[in-house]
């Protein structure tokens, strides 16, 4: 147990910060901890959580994906056309939405791998293209998502918020097994040392393509879940999510230099970020002071992770 905590120190810190913030939030909430309040909270958290998962896959291979928000916007607009109508139509629609996200990611990956251009730059450009396409689909917000489906995905299941169930499924059903596959390990290897990965006989191109495709896929999932929450399509949602997804993964202990961190951490980081924002609701902080407080808490949470280095007794340690 102690060993586990030491080797996953970053995730553990993120988890503790999250618990503290959530307790404060529930403590200040007039309604307190209840399924309703937890459901509202979890829905928001999961959207950014999925976006952070998308960012995680780019970051773990030492990249950055500036198109996460744009992929969400595009898939959200697609969803607003496909998620209403017959049950089979909706089922197909959900698959199509996620596939569209994966396709965006694959496109990023292809340009990054075969064009040999830095991910951050590629995705800066493709984000513009994705948003353009989203705007073609939805010049102004509109469309609809089947309300029953939306309710099923965004309310609760036996008193447990569906969003938390989905989070658990993502972790237990996908991430933990995935981490034990060659692909899962390959992502870390590539991000930690491309040279070593290559010399170990790993197909680094394929892994990088896979990483960005997964990033796109999770971007699509984020867009899909966003569609359930908002039941509509909006091309203008990109801006906030991209930068927040980066902040989220860092808060969750994922290192931007690649090779370190986990999907669990990314999720925790996203939940932290959204909980900070939720704290404002009943904090009693004057409305015009809220953005400042939000910024201060964010900076504080980030600095907690950073303060670690002040303890380093060997000055070279901070450079690794």
């Amino acid at each position, binding site marked *: 147990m102690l060993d586990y905590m030491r080797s996953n120190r970053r995730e553990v810190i993120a988890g503790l910060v999250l618990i503290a913030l959530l307790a404060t939030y529930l403590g200040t909430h007039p309604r307190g901890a209840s399924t309703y309040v937890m459901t509202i909270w979890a829905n928001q958290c999961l959207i950014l959580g999925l976006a952070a998962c998308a960012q995680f896959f780019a970051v773990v291979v030492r990249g950055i994906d500036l198109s996460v928000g744009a992929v969400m916007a595009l898939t959200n607009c697609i969803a607003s056309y496909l998620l209403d109508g017959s049950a089979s139509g909706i089922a197909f629609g959900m698959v199509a939405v996620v596939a569209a996200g994966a396709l965006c990611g694959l496109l990023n990956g292809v340009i990054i791998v075969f064009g040999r251009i830095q991910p951050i730059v590629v995705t800066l450009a493709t984000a513009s293209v994705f948003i353009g396409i989203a*705007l073609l689909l939805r010049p102004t917000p509109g469309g609809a998502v089947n309300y029953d489906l939306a309710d099923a995905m965004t309310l609760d299941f036996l008193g447990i918020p569906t969003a938390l169930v989905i989070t658990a499924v993502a972790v237990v059903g996908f991430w933990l097994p995935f981490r034990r596959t060659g692909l899962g390990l390959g992502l870390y290897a590539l991000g930690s040392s491309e040279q070593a990965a290559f010399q170990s006989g790993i197909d680094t191109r394929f892994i990088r393509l896979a990483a960005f495709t997964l990033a796109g896929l999770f971007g699509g999932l984020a867009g899909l879940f966003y569609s359930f929450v908002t039941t509509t399509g909006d091309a203008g949602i990109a801006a906030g999510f991209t930068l927040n997804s980066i902040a989220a993964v860092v808060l969750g202990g994922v290192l931007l230099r690649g090779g370190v961190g986990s999907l669990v951490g990314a999720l925790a980081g996203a939940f932290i970020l959204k909980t900070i924002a939720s704290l404002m609701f009943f904090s009693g902080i004057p409305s015009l002071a809220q953005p400042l407080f939000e910024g201060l808490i964010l900076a504080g949470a980030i600095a907690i992770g*950073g303060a670690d*280095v002040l303890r380093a007794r060997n000055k070279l340690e901070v450079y690794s």
Partner: protein
Amino acid sequence: MRSAITLDSLMPFFGVVVLILAGSVFFPQVLSAGYLTQQLQIAAFLGLLATGATIVILLGHIDLSVPWVLTGAAILSTALVGTGNPVLSAIAVPAALAFGALIGVINAMGVAILRIPSMVWTLAVNSMLLGLAVLNTGGFNPKGQSSPLMVAMASGDILGLPISFLVWIAISLILGYVLTRTPFGRYLRSIGFNEKATFLSGVSTPSVLFVAFAIAGMCSALGGVMLAGYANQAYQSMGDPFLLPTIAAVVIGGTSILGGRGGLFGTIGGALFITLLTSILSVMQIDDAWRNIIFGVIILAMLLFQTLRKGAVA
């Protein structure tokens, strides 16, 4: 000393020429001196921001606080001028620059001392500045105004050349000199490639980071002052539209986002290119959706062209 002018950094200038020629097919006025000098004037705002960003990117970092440093500097300088007090008006520009430098120092504290990735720390600083601006506007709201100096810097011209452009180029030349001819410039790029080895060579790498982020903050602040002079006022969010174009300008100018490689010459081309591209898409009245798509595709094409050329050489 290796030349700052590489083929990579020339690329955006070719791009500018192509854009002008292509644009003139639809609008012959694009070739007029009036339109072109206007682009120089406007490119200066982006250019100044990109100048600061280049320095930080050469270090291997990134500064996402540009938007609200810009806005904050604009609010501060116009507020000082707005007091009507001649002394306060006179120090408006220096005060804004000092503000930029201060924020740069705060950025550097997170990055150099706490070793927080610049990409998130500067983002957090950006949110705090937004918060401060909101609080400030809401609480006591001084009448704001740009000083004649600010207006002249943004909109005046000397011998037909916009002063904003001349200021930008002058600053690029000074900083270009610093980057290529001084130890500081060498340290900067060395850190961009390998901070640890630079530190072990007896360089006080934190100081370099502090100075670099401070310079970047001052560039953003100067951009804010100029933009306030241009619009004759300051307003919330005035910096938001500049963040991504700033990064795009630096990268198009051939500076590696990984640090170490690149320079200000290319950034000048990058800022001109992005400004012109935006302008031409605007005057062509292309639908917003298509503007986004074309913008992205052209940036990608430029980048692919750069790497393909390198591939062909290797």
